[in-house]
């Protein structure tokens, strides 16, 4: 028996602000309501409602054939999702923490990402879950996983920073015929400052489009996820204290990268700072730098610089983790250095 929509999933309908987590829940709920091919698989997502309660109440509403509590075997249930996608269903897989996506690396990169190319058809599949540090989660509950998959043609990678984008992007991801890895920063899940009233209508945010969250003319910060908010904070401080006009671009989608948005901004400011919470070596900053070199070298007035986490596992202790993570002050210092060119 289908239950009525729980009241906590109707905040947007009532015109109340929602958190990023609630925005994702609403997006999932609406897509499941409007398309019966959409179903969920993951650990503890049914009875328990998920480790972070993203799918609270879904089991009661949609039943255990569409909200499937799986064995603890990420490779197995991700592969099963791929099989179901072959047959025309549109599975959404939850990784309890994205750190645990690694057992599914084989089936994602070898099987899912290659399906269309191999002639095995489209793969409408979303793999979503919490990422990111700052919650004292230690090495196995804090990682960002984008670059483990960035190198795999056939995948899309999405990483929203606001409730509006999160809801619009999860809907786009579910409707996409390509496999999408969808990263949700734990630190943003319930951040009160991010709460916002969303349109009470069916809207989507397109995959592959960056968003200029702050206009500027002196330098460009290219970033995504939780670092968007630290970068904006830094930009405001730099404007007040240094009179610097800093543009901030939220990539929102990492694969495919929105080259046009980046290049257009570079041509305006001539200086680029890439900020990511992910570790340094092999981080997305490297790819962005080479693309700017290829496409806008003559527009540069300084080196392309980056602010990132350090190249280490994510440490548990607060003092260590705060040192590990890029902070607003790091963005400020790097921007001042770059502005000196």
């Amino acid at each position, binding site marked *: 028996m289908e239950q009525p929509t729980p009241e906590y999933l109707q905040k947007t309908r009532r015109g109340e602000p929602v958190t990023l987590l609630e925005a994702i829940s609403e997006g999932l709920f609406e897509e499941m309501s409007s398309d019966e091919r959409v179903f969920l698989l993951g650990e503890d997502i049914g009875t328990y409602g998920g480790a972070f309660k993203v799918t609270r109440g879904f089991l009661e509403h949609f039943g255990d054939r569409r909200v499937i509590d799986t064995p603890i*075997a990420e490779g197995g249930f991700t592969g099963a999702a791929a099989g179901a996608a072959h047959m025309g269903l549109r599975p959404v897989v939850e990784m309890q923490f994205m750190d645990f996506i690694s057992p599914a690396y084989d089936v994602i990169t*070898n099987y899912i990402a290659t399906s269309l190319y191999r002639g095995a058809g489209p793969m409408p599949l979303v793999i979503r879950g919490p990422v990111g540090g700052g919650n004292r989660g230690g090495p196995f509950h804090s990682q960002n996983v984008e670059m483990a998959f960035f190198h795999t043609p056939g995948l899309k990678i999405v990483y929203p920073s606001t409730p509006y984008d999160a809801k619009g992007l999860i809907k786009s991801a579910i409707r996409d015929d*390509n496999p999408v890895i969808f990263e949700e920063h734990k630190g943003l899940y319930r951040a009160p400052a991010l709460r916002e009233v969303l349109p009470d209508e069916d809207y989507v945010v397109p995959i592959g489009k960056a968003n200029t969250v702050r206009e500027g003319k002196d330098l460009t910060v290219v970033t995504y996820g939780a670092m968007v908010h630290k970068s904006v904070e830094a930009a405001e401080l730099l404007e007040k204290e240094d009179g610097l006009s800093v543009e901030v671009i939220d990539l929102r989608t990492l694969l495919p990268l929105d080259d046009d948005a980046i290049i257009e901004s570079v041509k305006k400011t001539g200086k680029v700072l890439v900020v990511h919470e992910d570790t340094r070596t092999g981080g997305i900053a490297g790819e962005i730098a080479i693309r700017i070199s*290829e496409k806008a070298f003559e527009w540069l007035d300084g080196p392309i610089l980056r602010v990132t986490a350090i190249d280490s596992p994510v440490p548990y202790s607060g003092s260590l983790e705060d040192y590990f993570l890029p902070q607003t002050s790091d963005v400020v210092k790097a921007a001042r250095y770059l502005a000196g060119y």
Partner: protein
Amino acid sequence: MSDSFPAGLDGERLKGLYRALCITRAAEERLEILQKQGHVTGGLYRSLGQEAGSVGAAFALRRESDGTGDFLAPTVRAAGAMFLFGATLVDFFRQYMARETSPTRGREANVHWVDYQKGFVGPVSPLGTMVEIMAGVTLSFSLRGEDRVGMVFYGDGASSTGAWHEGLNFAAVQRCPLILMVEANQYAFSSPTAKNTRVQSFTEKAPGYGIGAESVDGTDVIAVYEAVSRAAERARGGLGTQLIELKYFRRLGHAQHDSQEYVDPALIAEWEKKDPIACFHRRMVDNGWATEQELETLWHESEEDCRVAAEQAIAEPVPHGPDAVDDVYTDVTTPHPWTRGVSPDPRLA
């Protein structure tokens, strides 16, 4: 004619089984010729001695061409099952010869192709993955209330993978209507079964997953047909995932490049006496299910079909190199290398 037809089969269906065995062997023998002629560029894998396993199994399933029938995930040594599911000989040769006209447009090799209407999804090279995939395929049958079963083939070696365990466990828990076919041909490449498992029979693994299992002589096409018929009935009846062990022997190397020096020739000679086609041929004639002449004709027709299909595939074009950028995504363009244009321009990279 005989009134002692086995397993509820009639004369026509028995001849259908025999023909499927012939097609399988003749297609692989044709491949050897094509490889010697330089037409097959990739690996060549034979199922010599195992043909009855794939043919008998597929024969027991419901094969349709409109996307409503049972569903198969073969291995490279189960081409016989694919042919029964409607895979054409010409597509088989196109795949091995990487033709533009092949089902994968030259992107993938041998039996690695898919036809959702006919009901099969070819394997990928990482072993065990297809058990996970078929868990999901058959989960979709359950979710939609469709009366269909799935069948996945894999070998001794794949039984050691994590994917095998995870896929099987998922299917068992969800009571997916899936039949696992373990091709117990005694070797994983050069490694004998004892280096992959301590069990004497792969059916011993089944109780660990709470599923039904049966072991069968994989050289006896009728026995395989009967065992799989029983398993399919159990799976259809709501008993969920089933396992069938095909006991037989890989009489050639892992692939053509493997001369199989690690196997005692006497053992191979012993298994030659159990050749599935020769044995079935004898049984057909001895029981009066078919005449010697009829069976000879079926073999020669099979050989001729393979020759004609191969000739067609040979004549077809290879893919156009720049098409390599197509179909990475449904909606995102992959750029061509910036150095391949008339005037190199890195801004196009």
